[in-house]
């Protein structure tokens, strides 16, 4: 009926549709009109240029955290630490963006690179511990998330500002924000970061599919024993993969710091960008292209949801439920796969 490749595309699409359908049933059960609800969701994401701009803004960090998780996944690692890497990336970008003065051609790239570097460092430590001591990366990255959260709050209150609850504002020369894009989108917070995100996706695709390093990363992910047999340095690959993964997540922090906000507020809780990245990567099948698509879906749901309470009276918590259902159906894609295979069998 269809090839394996098509099959792999089919499963997430069906998962999303099932999630939306289940969400509709829940809306219906609680006495809301699902058609109106989804109409409001759609309008909230695409209804006018402001909403559209906001959607793109939200999609930008999702792409990057999704890439971070997906990249690690491809070499057999589960990077739950994207969250912490986002936070340290954000701090580093804002720090460099606010504390030095330089022309834009230097200042902006430098701030972005600082974020990538900070994220990379935050990925390096768990990678190092995993490779040399065999400590599971999930445990370390979770702990690194908390360290990032509290260290960043300390830095914001005591170093990058004068005791305030948010950091100093970055200089204009370090900003990704664009008047042109803002005017175009009716003064949304859309910024040039989407270009950075798309470039990052292309880089990931290129590394994994076209380079000998990518060949190693994937080989280590599929079969570390055979990789060792083949003479690959498994430890080096684990560390490097976590470093690259962390750099992607750090970039997501730069998007927030240099694009959306222009500063960093102290956080009492996680941003969730990194955790949502796990779902984005999962939905996107851990490929660069799939991650971009999945990030768009997540951004649309997140931003569109804001419109649901006002225009259809559906509480935004319900949208959280719909998102959770979609993830549930993706995670249980085994069942969908089994069902499709069965259909394929019977058709013959």
């Amino acid at each position, binding site marked *: 009926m269809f090839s394996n490749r098509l099959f792999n595309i089919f499963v997430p699409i069906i998962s999303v549709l099932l999630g939306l359908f289940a969400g509709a049933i829940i809306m219906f059960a609680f006495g809301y009109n699902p058609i109106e609800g989804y109409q409001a969701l759609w309008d909230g994401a695409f209804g006018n240029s402001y909403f559209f701009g906001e959607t793109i803004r939200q999609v930008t960090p999702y792409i990057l955290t999704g890439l971070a998780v997906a990249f690690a996944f491809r070499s057999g690692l589960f990077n739950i630490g994207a969250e912490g890497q986002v936070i340290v990336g954000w701090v580093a970008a804002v720090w460099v963006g606010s504390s030095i003065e330089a022309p834009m051609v230097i200042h902006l790239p430098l701030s972005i690179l600082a974020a990538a570097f900070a994220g990379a460092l935050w990925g390096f430590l768990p990678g190092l511990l995993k490779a040399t001591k065999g400590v599971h990366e999930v445990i370390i990255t979770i702990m690194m998330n908390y360290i990032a959260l509290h260290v960043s709050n300390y830095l914001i209150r005591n170093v990058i500002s004068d005791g305030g609850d948010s950091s100093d504002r970055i200089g204009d020369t370090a900003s990704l924000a664009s008047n042109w894009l803002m005017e175009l989108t009716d003064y949304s917070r859309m910024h040039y970061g989407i270009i950075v995100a798309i470039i990052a996706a292309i880089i990931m695709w290129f590394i994994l599919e076209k*380079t*000998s390093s990518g060949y190693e990363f994937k*080989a280590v992910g*599929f*079969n570390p024993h*055979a990789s060792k*047999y*083949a*003479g*690959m340095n498994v430890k080096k690959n684990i560390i490097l993969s976590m470093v690259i993964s962390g750099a992607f997540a750090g970039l997501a922090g730069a998007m927030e710091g240099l694009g959306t906000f222009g500063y960093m507020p102290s956080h009492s809780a996680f941003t969730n960008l990194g955790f949502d990245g796990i779902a984005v990567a999962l939905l996107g099948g851990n490929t660069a292209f799939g991650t971009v698509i999945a990030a768009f879906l997540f951004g649309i749901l997140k931003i569109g949801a804001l419109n649901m309470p006002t225009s259809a009276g559906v509480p935004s918590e319900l949208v959280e439920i719909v998102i959770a259902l979609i993830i549930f159906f993706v995670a249980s894609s085994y069942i969908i796969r089994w069902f499709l295979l069965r259909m394929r069998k019977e058709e013959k």
Partner: protein
Amino acid sequence: MENYVIEMLRIRKEFPGIVANNNINLQVKQGEIHALLGENGAGKSTLMNVLFGLYQPEQGEIRVKGNAVKITDPNVANDLGIGMVHQHFMLVDTFTVTQNIILGSEPKNGVVIDTKRAEKEIVELSKKYGLDVDPKAKIRDISVGMQQRVEILKTLYRGADVLILDEPTAVLTPQEIKELMKILKSLIKEGISIILITHKLKEIMEVCDRCTVIRKGEGIGTVNVQESNPNELASLMVGREISFTTEKAPAQPTEEILKIKNLQVKDIRNAMMVKGLDLSVRAGEIVGIAGIDGNGQTELIEALTGLRKAESGKISLNGKDLTNLSPRKITESGVAHIPQDRHKFGLVLDYAIGENMVLQTYYQKPFSNMGILSFKEIYNYANRLIEEYDVRTPSPYTQAKALSGGNQQKAIIAREVDRSPDLLIAAQPTRGLDVGAIEFIHSKLIEERDNGKAVLLLSFELDEILNVSDRIAVMFDGNIVANVKPDETNEQELGLLMAGSKKQKVGDQ
């Protein structure tokens, strides 16, 4: 009319793109051992999975004890008295023998599992069939042969009277094989019927009554083993004449390639497994390491290839010290390695077969330029190897895991031999393969030898050691205990040496 316990008539089973079984008939008589013979990938396992209810046939009829049945899943097969012992055991390591056997059909006393009763039943069963297992032992503590008997007991406990054994001897030592054969004979005396999936002709000749041959998914026919001979069976299976003794000219060994001095290697549990071993392999000879599994062979090979650190001692190749270098350095120095476990070490199963062909060379020109892979070069190269070494794959883009075991092994051999190494280490290169593939692999090893390369062959099959080696080093308890010439020894003597008895007459070094 014959009294058939199992009849599979005109079975046809298709998978996307291939017909795995076409028009196959299999009729098993009550109380016989019926061999199912065929090359790797011929469709034996598919046919048995149809019988066991794991697959549904597209066409054909199955009759059990004369009644037409539809076996929709393994539970149905169990109810019909069909039991299957898989090649890879399905046992819980940390459970006892009894717990494993009763798993899924536990005898209950109220809500509590009646272990006592189960143990008693198991002891009775194992006595009745001469299986001799300790019901209280944990699976991880017993030998592979014993584990297999547990698997057999598991099916008997569920009341099976037709046993399917999938390549049961592939994992056993020669002694364990002998015991298994004895057990099979006692089982049929008790009225059990057995289907033995195998491609080992010796075993068929020894214990089987009749033999059904499958070739490339087609049923070739059924023969009475008494009226047949290994040559006929082999040619039925492969479709051409097969020679059993490997043709080769006498070895012309020249300079020393590999030299191991006083090597000591520990295993994962920190136990010394290789205890001060000396060995040398010269160019133009095949040295076979004979021994019972677990005497340090694995550790020796891993130390030679850089997968495991040596504690002390020296390994040198062409006079160059290789001790404890990385696998990559060792590979680049001219060592190729056909690993014992091809799924764990030899292949990245999720990679295309073409990608697997460059597993050690992907970073070198022309496959990679400044870190960018050239898939054109990679697949050109893969296509050449696939053709030269007759690797049967739908395309070089097919995932390695989709290939049959024999073709996976051919791909590994193609990759290793084509690098033209000074030393070729072949660890159990023909494990689980059929005679056609074995013949091919042996001839490749000998070809390498004739090209002036050094070959180190590790095998648990004495036939293979005797046939292919120019010199046999017997390994026991972490040391080489004897060096013998294949034409001056026999299986008997080797078996004794492998078991650790001192050599009487001194062979030449």
